[in-house]
């Protein structure tokens, strides 16, 4: 009987969770709710804040498991499994790298041989942090790999602070934002450069 139960649990679907706490027979799942542990299961393998996998038995009770790459996100856990649940769950998987595309249109007076860069707070706003790929004479593109949930503020330059973009009033614009969401896209039209009126 015990062997059959273990086999059933092993074959069950695994869910990747970040445990917030584990006390007694209760397992708190980040952004989701509170699960009940399976009988005979302890919190010994649970370290708050560190992702693990769990399997659910027929009674929707959780058993901690070794983390595997095919584990489903916590958002896929049936709501019926929770003994305590919020109105809506939150997916906070930031392990996934997603691509975020920045498209920049430059003004016609941009010197044709100049490279265009983005500058972000990640490099203390280095004006030549990442060189963009040229699409044509007026368009540049950069595909960033960001963690899901990222929010990267950036400005457009031609490689030095003096060449940082300006808005139509020739003032410094607020930073643009590239989001770490699947296939995120942000389009920026540079009205003017700091060194070219």
């Amino acid at each position, binding site marked *: 009987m015990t062997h059959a139960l273990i086999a059933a649990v092993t074959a069950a679907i695994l869910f990747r969770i970040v445990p917030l706490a584990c006390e007694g027979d209760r397992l708190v799942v980040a952004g989701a709710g509170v699960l009940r542990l399976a009988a005979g299961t302890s919190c010994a393998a649970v370290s708050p804040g560190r992702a693990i996998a769990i399997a659910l038995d027929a009674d929707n009770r959780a058993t901690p498991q070794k983390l595997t790459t095919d584990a489903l996100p916590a958002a896929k856990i049936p709501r019926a499994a929770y003994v305590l649940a919020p109105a809506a769950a939150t997916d906070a998987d930031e392990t996934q790298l997603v691509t975020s595309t920045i498209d920049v249109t430059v003004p016609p007076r941009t010197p044709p041989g100049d490279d265009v860069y983005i500058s972000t707070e990640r490099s203390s706003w280095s004006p030549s942090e990442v060189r963009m790929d040229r699409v044509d004479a007026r368009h540049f593109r950069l595909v960033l790999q960001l963690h899901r949930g990222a929010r990267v503020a950036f400005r457009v330059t031609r490689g030095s*602070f003096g060449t940082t973009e300006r808005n139509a009033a020739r003032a410094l614009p607020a930073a643009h934002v590239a989001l770490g969401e699947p296939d995120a896209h942000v389009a920026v039209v540079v009205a003017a450069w700091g060194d070219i009126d």
Partner: protein
Amino acid sequence: MLDGGAIVFFSDTLALVARDGVTLTFADGTRAHADAAYIDLKSDRVVLAGHARLARRAATAAADAIALDLDGDRVDLLDAASGVSRTTRALGAATAAEFDAARFAFPDVDDRNAFIKSKHATITPHADVRFTPASFPTSVGGVPVPSYLYTYATGAGFAASSLSGATFDQPYGLWGSPTSLTALHARWDDGPGAALALQQQIVSGDDAYVSASIDAPFRGYAVRSFTAYKRLGARYTASADGSATIYGSFAHAGLTAAFGLAGAALDYRRSSTGFSTLDASLRTPDRPLFGGATWRLKGIVGFDSLRGGLLNQLPDARRYATVWRHGLDLQVASPLIHAPLGTTLSSTFDLQRTWYAFPHHYDQLGASASASRPLLRNVMLFAGYQGQWSSDVFPNAQTVFYPTPATPLLTPDGTPYYGYTAFSGARTFRSQNVDLQFTPNRGASTAFRLSVIHTADFPQFNGYGRPQWEARADARFRPFPNVGIDVGRVYDFAWGGTRWQPRWSFAITP
């Protein structure tokens, strides 16, 4: 202040995750303990996970997980058995509350992709985090430093630098606040070589900043400089900048105004040589011409001034201590034209004339054309041409201002440049470039580029002027998940008495 057995930081998500026993001390004296903690620096949200306890003066609160803000009053307590209750930072009696999942979101992160690992972090909300010590992990080991200040403030002034551009510039934050940053810069540039620079920035959001720096190369002379900016309402901006070396100083003050898409500017420049200029300009917006082309006209009025006279070539040079001038600048830009086979074409033209308050005018014509064409799915070919022709005209006095040299001009390697005798004020700058760009994986993280540039100018000879041939290769790639590298190599060929002259460019990106 955050202390933990292990702290990992992710620069793009601004997530701090601490585990293996965490202590957090807030600015108001509140202390927190937990098995693990997550701080979202984007929203200043804190989640304490596992055996979470809060203490403020004599008041305490405990729960399986606690959610609160770095500088807010709301405190949510999650007890696995009884649910969620809510209190304040005063930690009074808690009342039952709804279970807000977003408050208790704790990110699932991969520690291998962390930007920084540490054991102690001091957070200044909306400004920076100091890690002590800090290690920058890679798949082949970590790069440790005793302390590292990571600034995430987004005010435009934090991007303002009074330092000149360099081949390599790595800042190291010393002190920071939401409105200021003091940073040491390790720099390398062709010519002066290695340098250390110190820069102070004082910032007021996107509207105002002052940045001052001293750049001290190990060889050569130090450069002290500053730049300042203030936005004056929706229409006007004021700016000032300057620099000083042992050889002299330079300062500039400017004012811009916007009237819809038209604009005006006033600029005054002065150097320690006594030379100064004033320019007042008005520009039209870009206006449609035909077929998508646009034109723009700019008018400039101003003066040049020099103690002792501007025109040293004249016997009565002192009469010309200040020379007024006015000019017109017509710019025409073609639209981006899409031709067959994915080809795009574009061009610009620029025609300028400046009249001076004595018999002298300066003409300039500029033209550029660019073309791009995809060769393969990930390979693009670019070609460009840029030309600029100028003429400095002194009617009936051309030979006074552009006399034939009595002896041949010597180029940097000592070769005489006999052709320079033909120069009488008319210059030509022409360049052609061809670039091949390869972006595997649709440009995500990796890009390669090969470029060849040819210039045909006058005057130009063997080290005098621009190199005639230049080849460059650039590569951008990510050797590790959290570290990107952009490296470039440039060769100038058969110029200045050398077969070729190489240069490097190098940048590390998060």
